[in-house]
């Protein structure tokens, strides 16, 4: 199934490279959920996630001739998306610093409050997971998202984030430990415990 998807991706890429925009449209439709989900998990805000996803596809289209057909198209797309989101998070942080305002606790890069629209769509557990993710540094967050939502191997995560396998292992462990420590904290602990019990 995965190989079939990769084959059709390559076919569409080839057509898009020959000027067929409809073929690129097929690629967008096939991967829009994956890219949007990654952007949302990274940025924590729906509007910004949509912007980032659009930017990802535009960049992919602009650089389609640099795509290495030996790699899965989805991994290449996720690489563009995750690097773009990391850049956005760093710029966001720089903007805050330049305003000379104190950073929120734990250097969180986003508000902990869930937008009303999000609250309707996301369930409580989903919101809590997002809340926990926003407390991780961008590089750690990217490793966690790629591991849990896309089931990428250490090597694939390393290639996607342009780093080493050992760095990925280290980031994953530190991220998991940070999240585990947060679970023992007071904020949201009861709800997380409820979520954990609900899964059992």
């Amino acid at each position, binding site marked *: 199934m995965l190989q079939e998807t990769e084959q059709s991706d390559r076919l569409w890429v080839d057509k898009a490279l020959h000027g067929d925009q409809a073929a690129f*449209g097929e690629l967008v439709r096939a991967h829009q959920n994956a890219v949007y989900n990654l952007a949302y998990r990274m940025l924590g805000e729906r509007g910004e996630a949509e912007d980032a996803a659009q930017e990802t596809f535009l960049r992919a289209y602009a650089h389609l001739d640099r795509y290495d057909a030996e790699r899965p198209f989805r991994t290449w797309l996720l690489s563009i998306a995750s690097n773009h989101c990391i850049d956005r998070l760093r710029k966001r942080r720089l903007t805050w610093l330049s305003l000379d305002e104190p950073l929120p606790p734990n250097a969180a890069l986003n508000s902990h409050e869930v937008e009303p629209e999000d609250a309707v769509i996301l369930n409580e557990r989903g919101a809590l997971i997002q809340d926990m993710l926003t407390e991780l540094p961008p590089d750690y967050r990217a490793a966690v998202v790629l591991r*849990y939502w896309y089931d990428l191997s250490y090597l694939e995560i390393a290639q996607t984030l342009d780093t080493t396998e050992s760095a990925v292992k280290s980031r994953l462990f530190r991220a998991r430990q940070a999240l585990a420590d947060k679970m023992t904290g007071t904020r949201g602990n009861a709800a997380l415990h409820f*979520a954990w019990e609900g899964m059992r």
Partner: protein
Amino acid sequence: MTIMMNNKYSRPEAQRDMNLALDNELGETARASFEEHLRDSAQDSALWERMQRVDHLLHSEGVLEAPPDMAANIMTLVAKVPAPGLRRASREQPSRTPIEMLLTTAVMLIIALPALLFIHHLLADPAALNTLVQQIGSVLDSGAKAIDSALRGIANFNWANIILALSLVVSGLLTVLTWGWMVRAVSLRRQQVVYRIPVEMA
């Protein structure tokens, strides 16, 4: 300390194995000694319990669906961007440079060859060389006389000479400007495609 010595496990090793165990990357033997270590270490056992919770929690969350109009919005934006194939073709232009260079060399040879033959003929015939030197001297003399005459004309407020000198200067400037504009136009045309591509690389 005793526990660590019994199990031959250090804390960083235990943490590394926790990570590998969560990702199903831990072999059976390593898994057995890791579990043995957990039975002995209450601290790591508690951490392992918490990390498993995190792992289950993260695995439980599915992929979000993109907004329904996102694909259409993307395609509207994509329609404004030149097709990647066209840009690739324009970037492939430098590969034609060797052909251009060959043509230039051929043209240069066509011009240079008669010139070389002419020089060779002059060097072989001293009389012809002498004539050429005399002709060059004559041209230079004529030039000097012309400049002298122009200066005298200027000194005598000869408007005809001044207008002639000015027209020469203006035509020279126009020639230089025309060439400059042509070179710039060609260079911009080549760079135009490159500037349209977003500079940032994914």
